[in-house]
């Protein structure tokens, strides 16, 4: 992995304002998922605006792929094409009177031809699950839909890096999960993703790396476990510990054996407790019973009509859909997925309780499922099986 964005000794203050950013140093590697975490007013948005040259630092340097950013018109345009920025409030980001026109705004200004524009726009809209919305005026969309239009508008410019300012603010749980799922899909597509948020529950399981910001300075950066498990640090940053970590901490204080990894999800927590011989599945206690199987359906290879059959034949009790294509397929096949976010972990949880599950997803994410299950099996000494349905028809 090579360094994509590097910031060195950056200082910035708004005209007539207090210092907004003080001595910021960090670098972002290609393919990372970074969360910039801090309370309101910590300088998160200001820092993000540096990344695509919307603000120019007073001193210090921002470089992209090793080249210091030049603040002239041509170079800035180039940078902004590569570093896409999705603002917090979609109402001020959506410019045009229809969804199509808005998503086409970037491509048209980049000088794409008519057909290219059309193709990119339709592709971007289908990526965010909004095909068929082309003619709708933005003011008739819901908050989550507006956010996705804003995303499509940026995706249409095909950037390498995607920057999101508070991607889930003002969204309800279902809306937030949709958006986070979309971020994962984009990441699977090879994009580097940076989000800013004050929601620790959101950042903790999602991010590869966390940068903790307060009052314009970086307090800490590292993997989420390290950063969020430091109680004093989190408190100093005016944030709160993720609930699962706080519970884990309370329990270890009361004598729970510490585990190698900190719990990021319900699955992890159940696993940690079971390592302590707590809450083991009744049958599991007596003998090593077989875990449930995970049935992995490739959305491009299996027809919607066949899914019902797989479900019945394999005694499947819960279904997860990963990605917008999978959700669309579930809808066509008239299946109500039980999980649409954090799908793999939720299916693993069902599996260790002896239940069969199915994950519907597209080719890009299949490897991810295998990896996660392999890793979990290794760690927990279980043998959860994956059945691939790539060529069911044959």
């Amino acid at each position, binding site marked *: 992995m090579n360094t994509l964005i590097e910031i060195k000794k950056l200082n910035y203050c708004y005209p007539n304002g207090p210092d907004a950013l003080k001595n910021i140093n960090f670098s972002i590697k290609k393919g990372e998922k970074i969360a910039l975490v801090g309370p309101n007013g910590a300088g998160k948005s200001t820092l993000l605006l540096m990344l*695509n040259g919307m603000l120019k630092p007073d001193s210090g340097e921002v470089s992209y792929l090793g080249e210091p950013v030049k603040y002239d018109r041509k170079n800035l345009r180039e940078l*902004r094409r590569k570093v896409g920025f999705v603002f917090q409030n979609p109402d*001020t*980001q959506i410019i*045009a009177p229809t969804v*199509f*026109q808005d998503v*086409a705004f970037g491509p048209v200004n980049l*000088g794409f031809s008519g057909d290219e524009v059309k193709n990119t726009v339709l592709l971007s809209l289908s990526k965010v699950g909004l095909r068929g919305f082309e003619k709708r005026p933005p003011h008739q969309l819901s908050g989550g839909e507006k956010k996705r239009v804003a995303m499509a508008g940026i995706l249409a*410019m095909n950037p390498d890096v995607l920057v999101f300012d508070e991607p889930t603010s003002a969204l309800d749980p279902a809306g937030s999960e949709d958006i986070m799922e979309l971020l994962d899909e984009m990441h699977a597509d090879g994009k580097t993703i940076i989000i800013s948020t004050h929601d620790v529950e959101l950042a903790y399981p999602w991010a590869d790396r966390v940068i903790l910001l307060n009052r314009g300075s970086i307090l800490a950066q590292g993997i989420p476990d390290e950063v969020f498990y430091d109680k004093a640090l989190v408190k100093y940053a005016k944030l709160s510990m993720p609930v699962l970590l706080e519970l884990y901490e309370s329990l270890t204080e009361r004598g729970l054996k510490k585990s190698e990894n900190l719990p990021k999800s319900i699955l992890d927590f159940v696993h940690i407790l079971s390592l302590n011989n707590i809450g083991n599945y009744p049958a599991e206690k007596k003998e090593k019973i077989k875990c449930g199987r995970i049935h992995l359906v490739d959305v491009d290879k299996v027809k919607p009509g066949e899914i019902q059959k797989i479900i019945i034949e394999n005694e499947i009790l819960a279904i997860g859909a990963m990605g917008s294509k999978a959700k669309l397929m579930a809808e066509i096949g008239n299946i109500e997925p039980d999980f649409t976010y954090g799908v793999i972990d939720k299916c693993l949880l069902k599996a260790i309780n002896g239940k069969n599950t199915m994950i519907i997803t597209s080719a890009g994410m299949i490897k991810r499922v295998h990896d996660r299950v392999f890793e979990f099996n290794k760690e927990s000494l279980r043998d959860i099986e994956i059945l691939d349905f790539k060529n069911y028809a044959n």
Partner: protein
Amino acid sequence: MYYEFLEDIAQTNCIRDIHPLIKLIVGLGCILISVSSKSVIAPLLIIIVLSIVTVKIAGINPKFYLKLLFIPLGFAVISVAVIMFMRNSGEVIFSYPVFDWFNLTITRGSVNEGILILSRVFAGMCSLFFISLTTPVTDMFLLAVKCRIPRELIDLSMLIYRFIFVLIEQAIQIYNAQKMRLGYGSLKEGINSFGIMAGALFINTWNTAESLILAMDSRCYDGKFALNNENNKLSYPLLFVAGLFIVILGVIAFFTKDFTIFGAVFS
């Protein structure tokens, strides 16, 4: 406090998918025929036909449509009354001395003219409603480009279109918040509250503009706005029918131009 936007209804009406050109030909054609009609026949025909089309085919709620027709009533009645008293010709049918030197008089000619104007107004409004309720403005921008209207003007219109809806939302929120704290109780409070709201909206406008500039910049704005890539399919048979309809209306208007309810005294 605020109006329902016909645009929102137009976005979901049943004949949204007909090419805007056809709907504009019908709407604008009817408007032109009704303002130039010399008798009430053509306007009455337009009122009947377009109302049926709007309610039955485009699927607009008839109650709502009726409510819309009352909008022009206040202004129309006052103005028509003035005209009826001012433009006398022919036989006097009503006269009332207000002062010694002044008679309020209505004549056959002025009644005829009053009725004619009222019919034109209602036919005009029906035609306008037909356009407003069936043709979303978003469909018209591409047409406007084809008509060689300068791009800057169209781009500006598109921005205005978008921000009308953003700002109206804010205005409603501010108004509701004031109302809940008992603003607008008396005329004085009303003026004060309204002024504060307008001022706050003005400040918001500038802030919104600043974020908009940022957003446009971050999306590589280079002086261009995108258009919808395609309009609805233009159906030539339908275009022909629409054209025929307008021609027939025009012919009817021409041959009935001498018709008056109270006899031909009006030139």
